[in-house]
């Protein structure tokens, strides 16, 4: 029995050592994230992935809820605050305010979201996890991600989406159903998403940064099939947020009529579309820079 228990203890020690090494490497990977040239950060989900400024960094992955954006930003601002960082651009879209995100965040069984759920836990760490009020993120996710061998949390390179656009009706219907924006009452302003949007607003205010809620262009078929009452509520909600906070702006580009060739699918710009879109908002970004103290 003693020999058997020695083996078991040895295995436990080996696994714990490996986990601790990964945790240390992960800590180290956060160092020197913000170089002196970085002036703006783009945060968000897959809609932000192809967007990229030469003087900024993009921190986004498909399906990222606002809690991820919040924790990423908090970590960067707390550990590597630089006065140069003046603008935070956060992509928004109808999918951020439907039941999709919260459900995926809480559920254990959604494959599509599981990777992000783990990432959230990763960023949260134990103390952060305990600070979250409601709803809880499964403890298992928090624990297990600490041992993830391939840490891709800090991948700042923009997505290269150059493939043929997928705008067929079946795929559009699939995207819409995933986003759950076709059902009446889809818009929710009492959710975990809104809670973390508010935290993002407070955080950017605390660090004297401007926060731009960037409505990324959507294909006309996406907007045409989105339930209209909810869509109006969505626009009104973001407008009201921008009006009630001096450092927040809402740039409403969702309904920009861009040609099909600029889309990856009905709700994502491709790399070409992203370049075009960034050029279009370039002036606005410059103006924003000038207005800041």
């Amino acid at each position, binding site marked *: 029995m003693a020999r*058997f228990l020695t*083996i078991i203890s040895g*295995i436990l020690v*080996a696994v714990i050592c490996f986990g601790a090494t990964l945790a240390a490497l992960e800590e180290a990977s956060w160092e020197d994230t913000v170089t002196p040239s970085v002036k703006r950060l783009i945060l968000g989900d897959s809609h932000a992935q192809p967007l990229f400024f030469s003087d900024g960094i993009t921190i986004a992955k498909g399906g990222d809820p606002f809690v991820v954006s919040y924790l990423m930003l908090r970590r960067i601002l707390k550990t590597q605050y630089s006065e140069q960082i003046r603008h935070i651009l956060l992509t928004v879209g109808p999918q951020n305010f439907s039941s999709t995100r919260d459900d995926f965040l809480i559920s254990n*069984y959604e*494959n599509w979201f599981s990777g992000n759920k783990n990432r959230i836990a990763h960023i949260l760490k134990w103390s952060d996890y305990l600070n979250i009020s409601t709803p809880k993120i499964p403890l298992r996710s928090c624990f297990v991600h600490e041992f993830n061998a391939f840490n891709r949390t800090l991948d700042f390179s923009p997505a290269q989406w150059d493939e043929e656009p997928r705008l067929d009706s079946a795929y559009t219907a699939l995207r819409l159903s995933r986003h759950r924006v076709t059902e009446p009452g889809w818009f929710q302003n009492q959710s975990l998403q809104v809670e973390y949007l508010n935290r993002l607003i407070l955080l950017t205010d605390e660090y004297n940064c401007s926060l731009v809620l960037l409505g990324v262009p959507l294909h006309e078929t996406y907007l045409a099939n989105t339930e209209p009452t909810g869509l109006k509520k969505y626009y009104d909600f973001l407008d009201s947020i921008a009006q009630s906070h001096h450092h927040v702006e809402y740039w409403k580009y969702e309904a920009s009529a861009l040609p099909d060739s600029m889309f990856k699918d009905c709700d994502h710009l491709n790399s070409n579309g992203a370049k075009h879109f960034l050029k279009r908002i370039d002036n606005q970004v410059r103006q924003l820079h000038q207005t800041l103290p």
Partner: protein
Amino acid sequence: MLFNSPEFLLFLPIVFGLYWFVVQRNLKAQNVLLLVASYVFYGWWDWRFLGLIAFSTVVDFFVGIRVAEASEKRIKKRWMAVSLLVNLGLLAYFKYANFFIESWVDAWGAMGITMHASSLQVILPVGISFYTFQTLSYSIDIYRGTLKPTHSLINFAAFVSFFPQLVAGPIERASRLLPQIENKREFTYEEGVAGLRLILWGMFKKVVVADTCAIYANDIFANYTEYAGPTLMLGAVYFAFQIYGDFSGYSDIAIGTAKLFGIQLMTNFKTPYFSRDIAEFWRRWHISLSTWFRDYLYIPLGGSRVGKWKAVRNVFIIFLVSGFWHGANWTFIVWGGIHACLFLPLLLRGTNRRYTSETVGEGRWLPSDRELLGMAWTFTMVCVAWVFFRMHTVADGIAYLKHALSSNWEVESLLEDFEKIRSGAGILKWIESFLLLVFPLLDFFESVYSSRYALIRSTSIVLILLSSTLILVMLQFSLNGESNTFIYFQF
């Protein structure tokens, strides 16, 4: 409680510690601990169904004693009928009630008579098919006079509910497991390490192989109309590996866990996808169930030692019942029917026991051409049958196979489909998706050579390194992928 859950990671060391360090000197206390642990393990899922196991246990405990005590055959039969009625009645109600009601309504509907019947919305208690078969075999063995009843309710309850194999087998016979529960167990280093190896290998099969194959199989089966022929064929192969990894993984963990408590469970799988004909497949797949049906259904019906037509009838009965055991759906019956049709020619030619050796290619480096051909044919037909097992309706199964045979068969379409399935997943996922296909080879070598190059004989350092590497690989997969419950829980 699932074997691949964090709760089990806490549960197992606690029970192990209490078992070997607190109550190790008292056999009765050890059995009480096993019983309590088993009920906690099962109750973790839904405590209300503990009453069902307890009821089944108490009934068969008393039936066993009464059958043994009865001097007249008539009385023995009466008590045996009680056991059959209770066990099969519970199974029929909880597992098949809705199926019978719906089939009844459908049958009348086919004749133009509309009937309205509300389904009973019965929850299927996890593992009911396994433990009812276990208790039934106990009563039948006593009735046949091949087993003496136990007079300890605790020992019998611990046998029925022994947690490693309670919810998904192996279905143990009382003649094998009960004596182990009634006698003092010893812990040996060799058994401990062998148990550990089985647990880790079983977890690997579940977490790495089955759960990853599930990603492909689920997508392909759910959207089969969108995919080309080769992709659908590969979908069936992925499902074949998923269900094997899942179920044999569970069995390995169960056998390994039992070893940690000094108890030996029967082998449930012996590299079934290396079978050279369907008869050999059934000697290697879910052995505890196929031998159960052989001993308690096939042989009592006369087996193959009856007239030709009766033998044909017996084959169909055993395979159809086996299919029906898996679930209340016509798809399982069709699955059983396909296997019966494949088995029948072997039986009629008298070649169903041609391959009884332990492994294919035994004593040689490679199998013969004939063996390779046999394996390819058997595996292909097993995969075809799995399509029905996996689908929700027979019509869907037929449509899947039709679509597989009639749609585009170019290699490019296969690559395009995989790009769609693992969209944006990167080169590592591509490698992973094709590496999974060589899993049976890995399993074969593990199964055949592990005893020869046993970890048991390895040094402690090698053991620690191998085990922790396996754990880390599993963690990596379990964190990035989808965590599924074991498929056989639903049966």
